């Protein structure tokens, strides 16, 4: 029997203890014998054929229940059951629950559902969303309301925009003036042709600091604007007490000059 078990395990590419447990479960479910199931798996035959007692293999070494003597007048208190051999110590440590995946008729007859329909629905909604939310509105810039706005940047200002993005300024500042009460005083509304929407985009998504779309137009007029911006970026809390602006003293002179030029172009 151990040879049959080993052969079956090899044929199935599965550890012997798993095969043994599975075979016992299959035998119990089908009302056949464990020996028959193992023989079938080892020899490639149907386990149903093993239900024929005439095909039962030689008895395995499991202990037979003690036969009751016929002269015993006492009634049977409990049914006699055939005990299974205890699992080896190693098998106990690595015992597994074997789940047979259905290959025949399932226990529950469910309606056959269309996978193609489900996948098509999912992908169709995705495509519809991309079209409706991104592609169509992005290409509908012929609306008179969306006029092309801001002038192009000089080379230095362009470099300054790169510094702005590299330092992550767009994470704390927006350049996106909206037609709402909260944005009154921030300057002209940001339209679709705005420079902040151009690639690489600087429109931002939250205001930890103020909106900068038209910041140059709001700087104090009695000061040297460039010097004011430079000083603020280098020592922010000395210029504005309690400011949440982090200092950028670590920027090189060239990067600072470019960044200042860019900020002053935001009007």
């Amino acid at each position, binding site marked *: 029997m151990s040879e049959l078990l080993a052969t079956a395990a090899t044929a*199935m590419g599965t550890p012997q203890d*798993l095969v043994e447990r*599975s075979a016992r479960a*299959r035998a119990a479910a089908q009302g056949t014998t464990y020996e028959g199931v193992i023989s079938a*798996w080892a020899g490639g035959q*149907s*386990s*149903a054929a093993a239900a024929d007692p005439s095909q039962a293999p030689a008895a395995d070494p499991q202990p037979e229940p003690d036969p009751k003597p016929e002269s015993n007048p006492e009634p049977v208190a409990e049914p006699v059951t055939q005990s299974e051999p205890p699992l080896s110590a190693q098998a106990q440590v*690595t015992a*597994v629950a074997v*789940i047979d995946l*259905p*290959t*025949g008729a*399932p226990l529950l*007859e469910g309606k056959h559902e269309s*996978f193609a329909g489900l*996948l098509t*629905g*999912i992908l169709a909604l*995705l495509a519809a*969303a*991309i079209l*409706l*939310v*991104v592609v169509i509105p*992005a290409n*509908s*810039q012929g*609306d008179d309301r*969306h006029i092309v706005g801001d002038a192009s940047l000089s080379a230095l200002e362009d470099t300054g925009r790169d510094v702005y993005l590299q*330092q*992550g300024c*767009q994470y704390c500042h*927006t350049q*996106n003036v*909206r037609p*709402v*009460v*909260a944005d009154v*005083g*921030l300057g002209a509304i*940001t339209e679709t042709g*705005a420079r902040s*929407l*151009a*690639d690489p*985009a600087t*429109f931002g*998504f*939250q*205001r*930890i600091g103020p*909106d900068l779309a038209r910041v140059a137009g*709001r700087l104090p007029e009695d000061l040297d604007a460039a010097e004011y911006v430079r000083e603020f970026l280098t020592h922010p*809390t000395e210029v504005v007490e*309690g400011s949440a602006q*982090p200092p950028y*003293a*670590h920027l090189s002179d060239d990067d600072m000059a470019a960044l200042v030029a860019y900020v002053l172009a935001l009007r």
Partner: protein
Amino acid sequence: MAAANSGRNVLTGVLSTNADSAARRAMLASLVFAVIGAAATVLMLIKVSVPGLFDTASIAGYGRMRAIALNSFVYGFGGLASTGLAYYMTPRLAGAALARQRLANLGAAGHTFVVTIGLASIALGITDPLELAEFPLLVDLGLFSSMVIPALIVTATVRARTERTIYVSLWYVLAGVWWLPALYFVGNVPGTTGLGTQLQSSFMVGGLIGAWLPMVGIGAAYYVIPRATDRALFSRPLAQAGFWSLAGTGLFASVTRYGSGAAPDWLETTGTVFSLGLIVAAVATLANLAGTANGAYGEIRESTPLRMIGGGLVVYVAIAALLSVQGFRSIDAVVGLTSWYEGLILATVLAAAPLLLIGAMAYALPQIAGRRLVDGLAKRGISATLWGGSVTGLLLVISGLVTGLGWNTGAVPNSGEEYVRTTGLIDTYQLLAILSALVAAAGIAMLTLVILRTYTSGEAIASEVLVWVGEDDE
């Protein structure tokens, strides 16, 4: 010699064809990114309140910390956890072996490698400027490729299914594995300009946070709850209503990220209408799963995975409600561009997503590994993640509301040197958010330890093995 052996072991692992190996590896790798994301979130919030901290180091800037935090959470943790769970659930639901186990392993390894490179590039300042699209182009290409692999493998597995019914969790799995690469592609395709760039960004961010992460989390919940409670699903029609509500509205509602902006009015109206579908989806899902678990609340209290998933679902419903509300123009005019949306993002990544996804892992990994869950830290981890993440999100939502109301009423200025009054208004909320984020980060670390300890030193138990029984048994 040791290094060579390690290298061989890694290669063997990456090329493994053992059942559930890709699922296991993806899930375990995801936890590393959850911890990185949580730590970066705490640093990010500290930088808001203490901007001068480490001011000479560009890597410590708020922008870079935020980019590292969110990319780690969404693509590292969310991407790998959802992939691992998809690889675990699909064979069991479809009744078919996972197609191309070796490719699945390679894809998971590639995903891990590429996200790591991407985070390093952000730290070094090599980034693109769009939110959640900060990885440079080469990393984008690698990450997109690794995102497509799960979609192909799961689809091939379901096509080969032997189960007649397509179970509810499989709907979510299919949507999740296809939406992620699609959203990533749309959000990163170069060459857009003008309004298109802003819409591209809002579609991706709104889609990932408001639709995709809920999609993969709910799918995991639909798998675990019926199985762990040993109860049939309460209502399939309700499940259909919840799924198609989320699938049909989540992406369309993404435009509310930039409400009152340069987008056409009809698009903003579309976003407003569809955003109502988010709360429909959330309520339908919660009702269905609560109905499924009805009468099993004792089991839920005793079960770590069920408690986590239950907590995650409650937070998700709250987030969906606030996202829906934000869709209204009148609300957006107040809270738009404040920390309101940031609060919803942080509640998602610090509470809802970790609880749902790690909760599902707490159910799946013991089954795969044959180890009893080592849940000594679980109770504290769940409480810390749930309360820490939720409170962090809530504090930022409230500070956004306070800021917006201040601007609208003129109580605080929206620009100029007096802008410090705006930041001063929300100082307390920001400081408390740091503390609650610390608690959430500790919670996520504890839950990560629970999973890792289970995998490495949990008591051996019966594990779930899929054994193929061939046609010989007919």
